[in-house]
């Protein structure tokens, strides 16, 4: 049976059916994105940190806006050309639309990747250092001589699994251990399964006096002694907690040894002292860290503050988000960083930035660090309050940024796939029933315009304001 009213209008609505359908769907889409925009307002008003303004790559966002607008024009022109039976132009316009979608997604991928690789480290006084962890961040333990594995009789959320949660972090060759029974074993899936089943059998034996099997409970520690001391190199996601003498891994296993090093080496590209009570006493200026940037900070701050006072004598400098950022958030320049700094097209005199770049260079040299454009600091663990790459866990801004742009990106992908399908697989329909295909393209186009419409609001809200 054919679907009715794909070409001719239904008498009561005056429209072909798909058009009513797509508008009902778009109405629900408006509610979906409306809910998220509403969430954006709540998060922004309730934020207890400085909401990022012009922090994303504005050029990339602008290019993507242009690309989406262009694709919106081409998709509606594709429909018009199909109505006019200019099939060649129709196909060209559809192809351009799909290519634009692909460019948009490539840019989005680059933007996400840059965020995933970029880190924000909050120090205990509120100073935020941004930069890159070129070699990642690891906690090093040495002289590990004892592992305590915790095995449960009943199913438990955290149960010993050293093959997946300990061995991957052991440096060097596969380690050998002595069991409590005195056997020397190599720890692997088979030997652990044996140890585990022995422990469980022992626990069952102890429970035998209980009448019902469902009441059988118990935990047992399996202690393994290392034949030769081990070294562990642990990423931050691999453990629950640690002290000077032991570390608790994610499977509950406790490894005893010596904490060797838990400092963080960061290539700094930004110093944000906006949240520090006394910015001139920020931890960033301590002798071990970036003392060379203190005079740069003071000069830059005074320059921007004076400039603001001259330009807007009647305004309160503390209320200008832009001035706060310019004065208290130092971006450390390098050839790479310059490209990503549209903020400085804003007509500020160049002098303020020259000493910045010069001092940055000095600091890198004074610190005796080699190569790279950015100064490198080695942060003590006790000074770090929180660190994260620029992902949803960093703050609510990045949470809503990834939610909104991620959902929008999915819409771009699926919208483009539908249009690509019409272009590639509906050639026969184009020749035999072009009016039907025109209606399909119109409906696909309506969805595509909606995607563009959402971006029209996303771009200023996330990138600019």
């Amino acid at each position: 049976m054919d679907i009715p009213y794909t070409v001719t209008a239904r008498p009561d609505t005056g429209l072909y059916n798909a058009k009513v359908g797509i508008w009902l769907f778009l109405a629900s889409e408006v509610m979906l994105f409306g809910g998220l925009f509403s969430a954006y307002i709540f998060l922004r008003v309730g934020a207890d940190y400085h909401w990022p303004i012009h922090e994303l790559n504005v050029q990339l966002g602008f290019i993507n806006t242009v690309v989406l607008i262009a694709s919106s024009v081409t998709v509606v022109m594709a429909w018009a050309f199909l109505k006019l039976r200019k099939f060649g132009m129709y196909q060209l316009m559809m192809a351009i639309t799909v290519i634009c979608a692909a460019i948009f997604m490539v840019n989005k991928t680059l933007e996400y990747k840059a965020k995933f690789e970029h880190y924000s480290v909050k120090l205990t006084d509120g100073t935020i250092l941004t930069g890159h962890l070129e070699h990642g961040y690891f906690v090093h333990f040495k002289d590990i001589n004892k592992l305590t594995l915790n095995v449960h009789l009943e199913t438990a959320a955290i149960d010993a699994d050293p093959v997946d949660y300990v061995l991957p972090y052991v440096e060097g060759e596969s380690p050998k251990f002595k069991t409590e029974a005195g056997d020397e074993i190599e720890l692997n899936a088979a030997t652990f399964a044996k140890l585990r089943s022995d422990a469980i059998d022992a626990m069952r034996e102890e429970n035998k006096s209980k009448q019902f099997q469902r009441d059988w409970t118990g935990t047992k520690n399996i202690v393994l002694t290392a034949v030769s001391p081990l070294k562990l190199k642990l990423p931050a996601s691999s453990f629950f907690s640690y002290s000077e003498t032991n570390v608790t891994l994610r499977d509950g296993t406790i490894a005893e040894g010596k904490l060797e090093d838990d400092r963080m080496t960061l290539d700094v590209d930004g110093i944000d002292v906006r949240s520090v009570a006394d910015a001139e006493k920020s931890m960033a200026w301590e002798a071990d860290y970036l003392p060379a940037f203190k005079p740069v900070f003071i000069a830059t701050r005074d320059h921007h503050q004076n400039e603001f006072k001259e330009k807007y004598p009647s305004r309160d400098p503390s209320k200008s988000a832009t001035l706060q950022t310019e004065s208290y958030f130092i971006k450390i320049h390098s050839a790479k960083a310059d490209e990503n700094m549209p903020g400085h097209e804003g007509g500020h005199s160049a002098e303020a930035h020259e000493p910045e770049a010069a001092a940055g260079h000095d600091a890198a040299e004074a610190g005796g660090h080699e190569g790279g454009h950015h100064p490198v600091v080695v942060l003590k663990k006790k000074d770090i309050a929180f660190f994260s790459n620029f992902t949803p866990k960093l703050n609510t801004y990045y949470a809503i940024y990834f939610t909104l742009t991620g959902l929008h990106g999915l819409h771009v992908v699926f919208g483009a796939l539908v249009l690509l399908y019409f272009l590639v697989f509906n050639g026969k329909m184009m020749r035999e029933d072009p009016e039907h295909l025109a209606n399909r393209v119109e409906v696909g186009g309506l969805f595509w315009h909606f995607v563009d419409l959402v971006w029209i609001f996303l771009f200023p809200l996330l990138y600019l304001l």
Partner: protein
Amino acid sequence: MADNLEEIQKSVKKYLVIGGLLLLFTVITVWLSYVELPTHSMNIMVGMIVAAFKASLVALIFMHLSHEKKIIYKVLLFTVILVSVLFILFYMTHGDPLIFEGFDKTSIKQH
């Protein structure tokens, strides 16, 4: 929907003009965001007005909402009402204290 072919022929040019306007207003949005208005809220307000204007161009011209059948407007009327409720939700919380003892006050310090 423009049904006769002559109108469609003309609308191709119109689409290009609207596309150009949208690009122009995108540049204006970026530029305006770097202009230091008395308060940042005013920047946001202006930015949203420009965005709303651009969105209405897309909706009216590209999505043919300037000449659509009645039933579509009926559907959209409900959408507009319901989406307004989502934004009014925020005003209902306006009297709530956003800063209280639980917040770390030093972290929002202004210099």
